[in-house]
């Protein structure tokens, strides 16, 4: 297939996009489509970001691999210079342009940079009371995604399918104990989706979701929640699990309160799934002489919470996707496209 290439010497704009997750893909493809020369960086060897490890996606349960295929169709159809396996550590300003410092040396000089470095999963070991890393049958939602992707056999316990499973919402979110006050927005719907998948795979397995508030904000999310209740008989219990321990059979015993019943509850499950929140990436890119992250949350800040989406406040530096805070795939894609648009505005006005 002939690659579309609008880049000519008469169009001298050159930018860098850091990150090849959904946001970076949208930003790189959109900017290239506008005729900008794009250098594209990711620390991994392939694009797709977190989606590479997901099984099915909410709200429609589309396979992540399918979406990734659609993405690569788009990125292959246009010329973008890929620098994969490159961990960008910081950005410095030289003569009004930007250089990127990475494990592979210095690259420059770019008229603008879009940071789309994504997020990390909350490290569940920090919530000691759930025993992640201590008990074999305590896993996180991304762990479960991988298990679902690579085969349900992995979910067998002592040779048979699980009889009961529990999901704990808000692990690493909305929690003063670990200094994280924000809501990660997508863990509720992840829990709903994964609960449904488990009920489909193992119809005799009881599934409990322990939540503080149910936040199903996106399009199609509330409908999925209702389906989980009505069609799949997932038990949503309002109350936060505050202790997990292991019994002799290596099953996990949970303690919570059903706050709607005003009663403590106890349940033994084969698997405990922690719906971990989204935290700033540990490979956040520093921008020289500029504090580009929000003091409270650690995510990249926007120049204005209402109108400054994608604008870092530093001319020429833009951000897109979940590196600016918890975001869904459609939101990350939209934010990548809009960052490309902002970059274009910036470049032509320069």
């Amino acid at each position, binding site marked *: 297939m002939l690659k579309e290439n609008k880049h000519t010497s008469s169009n001298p704009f050159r930018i860098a996009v850091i990150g090849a997750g959904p946001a970076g893909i949208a930003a790189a493809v959109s900017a290239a489509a506008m005729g900008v020369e794009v250098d594209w960086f990711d620390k991994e060897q392939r694009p797709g970001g977190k989606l590479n490890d997901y099984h099915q996606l909410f709200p429609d349960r589309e396979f992540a691999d399918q979406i990734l295929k659609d993405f690569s169709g788009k990125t292959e159809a246009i010329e973008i210079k890929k620098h994969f396996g490159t961990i960008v550590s910081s950005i410095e300003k030289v003569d009004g342009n930007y250089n990127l410092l990475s494990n592979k040396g210095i690259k420059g000089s770019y008229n603008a940079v879009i940071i789309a470095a994504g997020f990390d999963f909350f490290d569940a070991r920090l919530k000691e009371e759930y025993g992640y890393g201590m008990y074999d049958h305590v896993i996180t939602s991304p762990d479960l995604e991988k298990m679902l992707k690579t085969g349900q056999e992995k979910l067998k316990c002592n040779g048979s399918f699980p009889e009961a499973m529990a999901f704990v919402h808000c692990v690493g979110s909305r929690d003063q104990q670990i200094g994280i006050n924000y809501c990660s927005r997508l863990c509720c719907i992840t829990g709903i989706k994964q609960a449904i998948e488990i009920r489909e795979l193992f119809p005799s397995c009881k599934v*409990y979701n322990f939540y503080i508030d149910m936040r199903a904000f996106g399009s199609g999310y509330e409908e999925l929640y*209702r389906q989980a*209740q*009505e069609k799949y008989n997932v*038990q949503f219990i*309002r109350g936060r699990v505050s202790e997990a321990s292991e019994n002799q059979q290596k099953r996990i015993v949970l303690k919570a309160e059903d706050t*709607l019943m005003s*009663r403590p509850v*106890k*349940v033994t499950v084969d698997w405990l799934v922690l719906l971990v929140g989204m935290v700033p990436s540990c490979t956040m890119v520093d921008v020289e002489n500029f504090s580009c992250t929000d003091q409270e949350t650690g995510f990249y800040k926007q120049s204005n919470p209402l109108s400054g989406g994608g604008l870092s406040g530093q001319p020429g530096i833009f951000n897109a996707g979940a590196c600016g805070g918890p975001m869904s795939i459609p939101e990350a894609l939209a934010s990548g496209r809009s960052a490309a648009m902002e970059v274009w505005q910036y470049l032509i006005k320069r």
Partner: protein
Amino acid sequence: MAGKDFGFATKAGRQIDLDQLDTTLADKIALAVNSWRACISCGSCTATCPAGVKFHLQLPTLNRAFQLGTDFCLELPTLNRAFQLGTASCLELATLKSCLLCGKCQLVCPRGIPTRYVSIQIMQKFKSNSHVAKGIPSV
């Protein structure tokens, strides 16, 4: 064996043990009105229910008890067991008899649950267990 009296004794637990739960009754009712499971305990029904304002009728609490399968008022392990034993004097259940079948609950329910029909279903289930029927009106 009659134990020694020390002037104090261990207390019965309040913890609902979900391992023991038996949701047969909830499943039976869900067969008739599946949307009942979609209750989100918003309380709209209780707020304007004549029996809720004057008596103890709280549909969401009753719903939770059924979903979990516990007769927590009787400290019995499961509601189903209470049903079999004919001890359906659970506060929440007994309060159903104060339902006037006015239909206001159904009118206000954001989940569109035919709550009035749920009431009838529960009462009928209990009525069919004849020795439990005491105190529950026929409909």
